[in-house]
């Protein structure tokens, strides 16, 4: 157990140290989300009606959740590259804790997600976003976001080990994340959707987590969404962490 903790920290450190040296990754964490916020706020914002809230207040919790989901791509692609370049073989031939490579990767993701959240919140505040709740609730919201990001990292870790190339990790991510985040309450009120989409959006975990964020940051009615979001976090970790670790044990380079 002690070994698992220290090995996990070593791998997390590795993933963070290399980050500034891969400029394309850094762009994905910084410029890209800012661009999305500005596009949504100023291109779509005027056309979408969000009763009770200004669009920027409505948008920020949604887009931060989406951004965290997209952040998982980096995990999937990075792990897939590790497998292909033989690094996973090296790690697996070392007397290190078996779960540490994945645990370290997902742990490093919490740090990069926190960075993304900070950048987006600052951008949001500059263009007019305001918390409508207490500091404690706002912080609870950030904690929930990071917990969700952590859970989603395990899903992407599994995807990264499952697919055959970094490119397909990328496409699988897009195919999963785009519909899930768009057919949710992230960008528009669910009420405005056709009934079939709405039925899907109502049970979509992204709707639940975005609603929970709006409760914690804007004081929107909770409707059990915070508990629902926590359950989703546990379910995602409970399902995908064991799947990813099992897959890792069999992963073969090239």
């Amino acid at each position, binding site marked *: 157990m002690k070994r698992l903790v220290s090995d996990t920290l070593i791998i997390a450190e590795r993933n963070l140290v*290399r980050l500034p040296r891969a400029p394309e990754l850094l762009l994905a964490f910084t410029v890209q989300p800012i661009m999305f916020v500005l596009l949504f706020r100023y291109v779509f914002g005027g056309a979408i009606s969000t009763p009770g809230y200004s669009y920027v207040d409505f948008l920020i919790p949604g887009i931060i959740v989406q951004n965290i989901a997209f952040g998982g791509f980096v995990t999937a692609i990075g792990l897939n590259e590790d497998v292909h*370049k033989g690094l996973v073989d090296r790690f*697996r*031939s*070392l007397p290190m804790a078996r779960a540490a490579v994945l645990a370290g990767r997902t742990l490093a993701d919490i740090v990069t997600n926190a960075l993304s959240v900070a950048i987006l919140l600052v951008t949001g505040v500059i263009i007019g976003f305001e918390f409508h709740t207490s500091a404690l609730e706002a912080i609870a919201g950030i904690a929930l976001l990071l917990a969700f990001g952590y859970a989603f990292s395990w899903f992407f870790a599994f995807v990264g080990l499952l697919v055959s190339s970094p490119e397909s990790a990328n496409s699988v991510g897009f195919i999963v994340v785009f519909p899930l985040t768009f057919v949710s309450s992230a960008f528009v009120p669910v009420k405005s959707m056709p009934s079939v989409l709405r039925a899907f959006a109502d049970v979509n975990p992204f709707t639940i987590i975005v609603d929970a964020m709006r409760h914690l940051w804007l004081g929107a009615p909770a409707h059990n969404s915070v508990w629902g979001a926590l359950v989703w976090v546990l379910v995602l970790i409970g399902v995908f962490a064991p799947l990813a670790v099992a897959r890792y044990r069999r992963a*073969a*380079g*090239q």
Partner: protein
Amino acid sequence: MGVRAADDTVSALGHSAAQAEADAITVRGLFKSYGSVQALAGVDLDVARGSVLGLLGPNGAGKTTLVRVLTTLLAPDAGTAHVLGCDVVHDAARLREQIGLAGQYAAIDENLTGLENLTMVGRLYGAPRKVARARANELLERFELLDAAGRPAKTYSGGMRRRLDLAAALVAKPPVLFLDEPTTGLDPRSRLGLWRVIEGLVAEGTTALLTTQYLDEADRLASTIAVIDHGRVIARGTSDELKDRVGGERLEVRLDAGADPQRAVDALMPMSDEAPAVEGTLVRVSVRERSGSIVEAVHRLSEAGVGVDDLAMRRPTLDDVFLALTGHAAEEDAPEPQSAT
């Protein structure tokens, strides 16, 4: 150890306890399939402590699969394999503490510097950061990477990456080393450099299992060679023993442009048990004895009035061995299942 096929059951079963003690690696009846492709079809192998076994075979012969099983990356379907007494399946964790693996492709993190790569590996072997760092610097110096120690590995040349990869395999000073085609794709100079490093390690007592498609590499580095094809060890012995197996010395005669090869063949026939082979103006004949053959050949050819441009004795190469044993050349590519490479 004499020349024998390693699937010779008598010698495999007759392996004494004392010998097992002396062997760093023992493999018995190892099988592994990927779907319908049988990568290992009953491999038996022993590698004595402190020796280098060269595992020689074409692509797809099962070399990499065998290395993956021995380094606990892959579970065998049947059979047993031990490294320093640790079973690859049941004592995998203990086994990993005693081995180093350098792969076909350089398994390093390109975004980390040379120093960071080696320090990370040292810490993952359980060394404290300071100790791991000191060891990393020691290895960087030994592998002439000290100047590049602070640069991300993606800026390294192919040869530097291989050296870093090999250094990573040596971080914990493992008594047993697995080198899977360590010089594939390297330029001749880097290759020579890597050979010297490997020779140095062996001189210090490291046991190594080296896979290669290059016959000269096996010839130079390995004390014993096992030839593997279609998942089976088809021959083993020292390089000389294997060469003896395909017959004695070759006499190669390059004739003058106008000379009649048939007359040369007739003249040389009495020196050999087999008919001389003719290829253009080149006549090859395997002779019974080395001593005196050149003089005798020159004498016979000049008596027959055949003009000779060049004449040389040649020991059979491992290429000849491979061709004789498998019916195909060593560097001919056979398809290999994706997951086995």
